[in-house]
């Protein structure tokens, strides 16, 4: 663990791969029903508890899906359609917080916590590895005082054992 570079590289590559997949997202749906479902699944059903407009059986959710279908047929983009619902219901109608303003906190904090967790894990592993190396074969040069004392104690105890139980 003297060289944290490979670990750092591994972490960066993993984070990069996850980020790439997250940014790219699933393949773009083609049919109108799929496009409606795609938009509806990003909207919260206003009359339900924690259900998307795509999943809710409520009549209002059905009417929202109809509205989305009509808006798509009228040539509106998914972002424009979402913006219309946000204008009426506020940003709480979006299932994912917006990537701006206070909503950014929800995106940044998990990444920061992940980074902090990685840093803590790295530190612990590093200290643990450093501790293990002390018990390994002695290096040249002066030995640490504590280890010398332990060794002396060990030798004394072994000698005592030999005296008590001669084989």
């Amino acid at each position, binding site marked *: 663990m003297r060289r944290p570079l490979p670990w750092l590289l591994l972490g960066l590559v993993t984070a990069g791969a996850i980020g790439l997949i997250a940014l790219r997202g699933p393949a773009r749906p083609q049919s109108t029903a799929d496009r409606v479902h795609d938009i509806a699944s990003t909207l919260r059903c*206003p009359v339900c508890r924690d259900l998307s407009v795509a999943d809710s059986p409520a009549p*209002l959710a059905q009417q929202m899906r109809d509205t989305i279908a009509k808006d798509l047929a009228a040539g509106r983009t998914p972002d424009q359609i979402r913006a219309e619902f946000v*204008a*009426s*219901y506020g940003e709480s109608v979006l299932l994912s917080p917006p990537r701006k303003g206070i909503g950014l906190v929800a995106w940044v904090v998990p990444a920061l916590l992940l980074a902090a967790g990685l840093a803590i894990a790295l530190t612990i592993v590093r200290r643990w590895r450093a501790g293990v190396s002390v018990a390994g074969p002695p290096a040249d040069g002066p030995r640490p005082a504590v280890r010398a004392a332990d*060794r002396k104690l060990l030798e004394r105890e072994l000698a005592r054992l030999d005296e008590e139980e001669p084989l």
Partner: protein
Amino acid sequence: MSAQVPAPTPVPAPAHSRRWRLWPVLAVVGVVALVAGLLSFGLGRDPTAIKSPLVGKPAPAFSLRTLDGRSAVNLADLRGQVVIVNFWASWCTECRVEHDALAAAWQRYRDAGVVLVGVDFQDTRADALAYMDQAAMTWPAVEDPGSRTALAYGVYGIPETFFIGPDGQIAAKDVGPVSFARIAARVDRLLPRGAG
């Protein structure tokens, strides 16, 4: 070999080790304080009090047929008047609670340039007409095909009441049954001085 070993001496803990033990504790305390703060902020709020983003904005336009099919209500035609838009339904028990307050307000303000419009929400025409007849509802009530107007007004659950000023902007929104005093306070503020 043991002769070469120096005498054991107590090793003082390095100065930084105490700091090492302190910062995870501080981090945990910080995170716990943050979560507790957020929870106390979030749980302290009334989840039913949803602030409408439409307050202070132009009221979404609508032109809807009355339930009896005889006429239509076009919001644009009501510019310059105070308009109360009340979303209701025959199946909505809370709407029955506020019915008398709405009826009293309609009685009190209908000649003072105030229009009350009931928008029927997720209902059948037959049920709505039966309710109107039974409750003696005399203000115009319109049907909202596909709930397009309810969606434009961001309706969560009825009853919901919007107060539109003479300038065509939404001045206030009430969720749940409204009292006469609440309606009067809202309307008096919106009416030009001397009216009402």
